[in-house]
């Protein structure tokens, strides 16, 4: 039985991961901002077979709460085997462009809060010399594009940070899994016209759980995004700046 701590537990992807873990009988500690939804999900996860479900309301942007909450989760679960950091927002690119404040908020939510959680959980697991930290980054972090570069920049920071963290923790036997989903059909992307490239959160979740089981380093979900992003990354800037992406 694994002990799993999830941040952003009400996100569609994290919830589907929790359902898979519940069916396996793992113990879960769920953290999210929306209390009503968190309670609904916690009782659902318990009925689906989780050995234990604990939950705590927290806004990840209250960064001074992080250390205390992680201590509480460790104490309540009796240790931690897996951390999944899955919170995030997708703000409107256009309105961010016109507002420094909104841009900073987006960076705060999607990057800085994650960096804080990564640092604290990494330091804990490093002393235990075991465990896995998984975080949902994005293909958007592979190269900034005009349509989505603020979210992309935040995710790029997460990707670079976890790359270094993975090297640091290798000798302590702690795995760091960077997950890069493409287009996922979740409430975060309501309003987008969904097409063939879109996948369901449950599909993404089962691949995330497998990646965590196998202690993978970086995974693109679905895999074909690796090829797409490779192409996007090698386009020379002289051409790239003229493209509408």
């Amino acid at each position, binding site marked *: 039985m694994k002990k799993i701590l999830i941040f952003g537990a009400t996100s569609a992807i994290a919830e589907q991961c929790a359902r898979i873990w519940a069916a396996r009988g793992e113990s879960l500690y769920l953290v999210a901002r929306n209390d009503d939804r968190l309670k609904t999900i916690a*009782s659902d996860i318990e*009925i689906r077979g989780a050995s234990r479900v604990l939950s705590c309301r927290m806004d990840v942007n209250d960064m001074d709460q992080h250390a205390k909450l992680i201590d509480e989760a460790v104490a309540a679960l009796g240790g931690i085997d897996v951390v999944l950091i899955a919170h995030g927002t997708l703000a409107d690119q256009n309105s961010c462009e016109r507002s420094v404040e909104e841009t900073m908020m987006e960076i705060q939510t999607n990057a800085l809060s994650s960096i804080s959680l990564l640092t604290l959980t990494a330091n804990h697991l490093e002393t235990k010399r075991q465990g896995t930290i998984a975080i949902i980054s994005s293909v958007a972090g592979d190269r900034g594009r005009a349509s989505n570069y603020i979210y992309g920049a935040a995710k790029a920071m997460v990707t670079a940070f976890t790359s270094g963290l993975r090297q640091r923790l290798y000798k302590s036997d702690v795995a760091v899994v960077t997950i890069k989903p493409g287009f996922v059909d979740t409430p975060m992307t309501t309003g987008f*016209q*969904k097409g063939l490239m879109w996948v369901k959160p449950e599909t993404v979740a089962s691949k995330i759980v497998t990646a965590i089981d196998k202690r993978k380093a970086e995974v693109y979900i679905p895999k074909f995004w690796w090829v797409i992003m490779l192409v996007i990354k090698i386009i020379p800037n002289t051409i790239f700046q003229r493209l509408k992406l």
Partner: protein
Amino acid sequence: MFTRVVSGWGNYPKQEARIASPSSCSALQDLIAQEESLLARGMGRSYGDSANASVVVETSCNDHFLRFDEMSGRLTAESGITLREILKVVVPKGWFLPVTPGTSYVTLGGAIAGDVHGKNHHISGTFGEHVKSMTIAIGTGDILTVSPSENGDLFYSTCGGMGLTGIIIDATIQLIPIQTALIDQRTLKLDCIEAACEAFQENSNATYSVAWIDCLARGKHLGRSVLMLGEHSRSGGMYFDLKEPKTIPFNTPPSLLNKPAIKCFNHAYWHKAVHNQLQTPSLGAFFYPLDAVGSWNKLYGKPGFLQYQFVIPKEGGVANMRTLLTLIAESGQGSFLAVLKQFGQANANLLSFPFEGYTLALDFKVTESAIKTLHRLDEIVVRMGGRVYLSKDAVMRESTFKSMYPEWEAFEAVREKYRAIGKFSSAQSSRLGLA
């Protein structure tokens, strides 16, 4: 909101719809206030246009277990949960659905809205008869608790009400206890419709009974059937594994399901069956054989198919069934999977389909002549005092509906009372002349 083309499981007819998926009750209430007209949509497994609407509220985010009492088998869950998800959790704990349709890929809300039935209708009635209570968002945005004793008129209109009374948020159902995850199945081969109907009558105490029927057989073999009887096994363990289906990713050329192919299939099915054979299939294999083939609806190709299910009264039912089967066999359009069953008593739900008699379900590839055949069958079924199942209908005429479902006026009165008129509507309800 985004737009998408929606259709029922038959892939006919299709409609462009705006898709909403509210993630909370207050978001749902806002939506009800903003939109002129809308309709809840679950897995889209009704066959025709029951869940086609210009604005559909997808309930897929509303799919949580709320309460499950493992001692009493009382389960409360949100309406968007599928029966499949319910089974995965409750079967290993010794519980099963009191009534289940032939696929596990339907939502709880959809099962209530269609007041679906299963192989045990003659004993256990419809799904709605096992619903203890529900919460429903009505046309004003108010959220009401309904049960047979509380807002009873809304309860009996919502069970079988095709989503036209409001949006079901959650429901409490009573499960049945099981000792194993297996079924003791007995197969009977019956070489004409009379023998089949007699066998249903003789085995009316069997918990589950359903027959595959060869709709292309004619003459003395007209209505030859393979009847499957089932009881929950008492030994054999609780191991339960619903296999994920192999999917047919693309529409096959429509010519593939032609008459010779269907004839071959039916011939093989008949000759493969062994009279009086005893088997112990798993719950999945007994109740959901087609779930193992992911999107079998694509077998009919791009034009899609029409599913047709009618029930005719028991009195004179055998002779009437012979008349209808003759007509279907002569049309040469019968499907490769037709199902015959004897229903038990009707219930109090205003638009519920089943009543005591014989029911037949079959598919037709969508063609002009198939639609004509269905209209012709409709007329005969009306004259026989029968009716057609709304969850499968795509082409019925308004006048036919109103003679088949005389309670439609009472249904409209309840909708009026709870401000559902105009607010909750589907392509089907417009076609059938419901306001």
